[in-house]
């Protein structure tokens, strides 16, 4: 039902069931919010969105109050503004106030609110927050002193990821956010996905930085420093430099990486192709030999840890393939090192990932060869942008360059890994060829595309009908796994990504991207796929060469040694 409400003396239309905030947004108006999260049930706890409603004695929260016919609202009356201002002043009263040194200087919502509300003096002085930094995690750093208790991290961890590693602890003015028994993230169930960073309004959550190590090695003349970047970096990095979302700046990024001083620039999409060769072969092997089905992808390290903790009765379902990051690392320090005559110990291998969990994955014991790590440091998209700025590089002035050969050439199947459904689609393209020895007529698998949390499709491969499912957000993954455990058998292959929408929305991506930006990144990846000539991993000539010269065949002895891994059951505390 449609009706009219009055906002600041203007009539606007609203729908039955809308909250005031919904109605305002649809009409291009707005009020500031803090605890509000799109798509989740409103809590109305921060009171930032309060508005004045005719006939109501108290201010009401726009995020949770349903509209009613003829409602008269004032969104920016003197009383409302004063109230919002006081809330921000109170939040600032115990805040460390170290903006100049803060990771989020310039992208902080608290900073923006105090700017927007024209707060120009410290009216309320409180005792400063004094909490210990939590640096225990391989991926994340938590600084509860900067926390304003909006609870968005707690909610994303529980309601989107189904992990609940953190919670409000204590009570009243002594409340803070912490893990069970104050043990720190490392000992908690945290899967390192970094979605908490993406929703944090302040600098209370950030990635564990790897910039310093990277710089040290760049200035070491004895080290060959090699960088690889994940498929989704080239379509999100632009936003860090004020360019429009979804712009693909891969050539400029290559040029920038060389200016910074990396000796070789490789594309993780190449090893995504390699992952597909191994993973599709594994799927075909399982189907033909009655192996454990459904097979579940293993390229998302957030999902892998989640499975080890919460679904460890299904570890046999996980593909034994390492992720593209780790495969690239292993190939760099074996095949590439050999062919270039470089001592693997003198290689410093860096990756740029849209992800914080990759920092954890890189440190896993299984991800080493003879005591040498496959990958030495992992930078997020944000850290790469910082590194580029640190070197004073003006990306607007750079001419595009190509990545280095041979590990910099990809098929477009490897490129679409960056979005939810991409790994599935790439694997189907190659599995189709492996089973039928024919290419797919149309390469697209439309049913697995899009940002929805769960997608299912049936794919005809020769005479075989394969049931596939793609989930993103670990809560969705959990639900699907429960269905499988309860006997669902029409699904043979599952792709899981921890972050909603896949790596394009990863925990290492630029802060502050909305759904439109994420969609733009996805669209660009599929556009690239549309325009590329080589659309399947097995047709990448450098992949063929790698198998001919070095690996032998997929699932062969060398592959097993370098490209496959195993998983461990983890007790959840």
């Amino acid at each position, binding site marked *: 039902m449609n009706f009219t409400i009055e906002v600041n003396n203007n009539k606007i239309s609203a729908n039955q069931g809308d909250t005031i905030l919904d109605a305002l947004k649809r009409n291009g108006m707005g009020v500031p919010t803090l605890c509000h999260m799109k798509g989740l049930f409103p809590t109305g706890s921060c009171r930032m969105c309060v508005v004045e409603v005719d006939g109501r004695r108290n201010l009401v929260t726009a995020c949770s109050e349903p509209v009613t016919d003829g409602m008269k609202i004032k969104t920016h009356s003197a009383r409302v503004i004063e109230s919002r201002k006081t809330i921000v002043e109170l939040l600032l009263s115990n805040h460390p106030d170290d903006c100049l040194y803060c990771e989020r200087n310039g992208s902080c919502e608290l900073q923006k609110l105090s700017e927007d509300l024209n707060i120009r003096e410290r009216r309320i002085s409180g005792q400063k927050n004094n909490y210990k930094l939590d640096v225990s995690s391989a991926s994340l750093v938590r600084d509860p002193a900067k926390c304003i208790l909006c609870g968005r991290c707690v909610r994303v961890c*529980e309601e989107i990821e189904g*992990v*609940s590693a953190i919670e409000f*602890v204590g*009570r009243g003015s002594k409340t803070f956010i912490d*893990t*069970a*028994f104050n043990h720190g993230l490392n000992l908690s169930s945290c899967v390192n996905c970094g979605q908490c960073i993406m929703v944090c309004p302040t600098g209370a959550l950030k990635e564990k930085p790897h910039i310093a190590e990277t710089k040290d090695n760049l200035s070491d003349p004895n080290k060959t420093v090699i960088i690889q970047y994940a498929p989704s970096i080239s379509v999100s990095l632009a936003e860090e430099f004020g360019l429009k979302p979804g712009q693909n700046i891969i050539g400029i990024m290559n040029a920038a990486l060389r200016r910074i001083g990396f000796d070789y620039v490789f594309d993780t999409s190449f090893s995504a192709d390699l992952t597909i060769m191994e993973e599709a072969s594994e799927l075909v092997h399982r189907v033909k030999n009655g192996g454990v089905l459904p097979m579940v992808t293993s390229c998302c390290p957030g999902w892998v840890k989640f499975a080890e903790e919460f679904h460890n009765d299904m570890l046999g379902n996980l593909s034994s393939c390492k992720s593209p990051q780790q495969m690239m690392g292993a190939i760099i320090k074996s095949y590439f090192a050999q062919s270039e005559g470089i001592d693997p110990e003198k290689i410093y291998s860096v990756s740029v990932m849209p992800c914080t969990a990759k920092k954890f994955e890189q440190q896993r014991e299984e991800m080493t060869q003879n005591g040498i790590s496959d990958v030495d440091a992992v930078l997020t998209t944000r850290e790469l942008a910082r590194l580029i700025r640190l070197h004073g590089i003006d990306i607007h002035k750079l001419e595009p360059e190509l990545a280095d050969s041979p590990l910099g050439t990809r098929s477009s199947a490897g490129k679409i890994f960056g979005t939810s459904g991409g790994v599935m689609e790439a694997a189907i393209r190659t599995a189709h060829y492996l089973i039928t020895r024919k290419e797919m007529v149309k390469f697209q698998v439309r049913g697995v595309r899009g940002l929805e949390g769960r997608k299912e499709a049936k794919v005809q491969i020769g005479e075989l009908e394969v049931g596939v499912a793609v989930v993103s957000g670990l809560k969705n993954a959990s639900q699907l796994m429960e269905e499988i455990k309860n006997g669902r058998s029409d699904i043979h292959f599952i792709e899981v990504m921890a972050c909603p929408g896949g790596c394009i929305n990863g925990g290492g991506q630029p802060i502050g991207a909305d759904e439109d930006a994420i969609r733009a990144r996805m669209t660009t990846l599929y556009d690239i796929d549309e325009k590329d000539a080589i659309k399947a991993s097995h047709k990448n000539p450098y992949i063929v060469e790698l198998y001919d010269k070095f690996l032998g065949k997929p699932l062969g002895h060398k592959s097993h040694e370098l490209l496959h891994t195993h998983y461990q059951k983890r007790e959840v505390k």
Partner: protein
Amino acid sequence: MSIAIQEILAKYPNAKPDSLIPILQHVQEQMGFLSEDSVVEVGKYLNMPTSKIFGVATFYNQFRFNAPGKYHVMVCRGTACHVLGSATVLDEIEKNLRIKAGQTSKDKLFSLEVVACIGACGLAPVISINGEFHAKVTSESIKTIVEEYRNREVQQ
């Protein structure tokens, strides 16, 4: 799983998360405190994350996470005691025992708890050690009182 916890949980068949607080109270009553293992077990039983239970338990003053010491010291911080200087008393005890409220000393001899009112306002400021009341305590008398309990231990 410890048998004690098993026995407690058996008393709550088909329990839902809203039984959490009664279960935690029961565990604390039986075991003296909420151990990590017991919280993990309760979490598994109710299908609740440990962090959530810890969050709920830390909200309430009644739950403790350390085994109580042989001598459990309760310091009254009610109004009458406050007016007569219980803040200093608490401070002094914390210094003397080298623990904060909610903690247990390393030798497991003393544990410390702050309570809102013991109900003995006439004796303010008052503390209670294993149920024995000590009236009108001062920073000076606290040293003697604690010493007395330490000596009991030596004599045994």
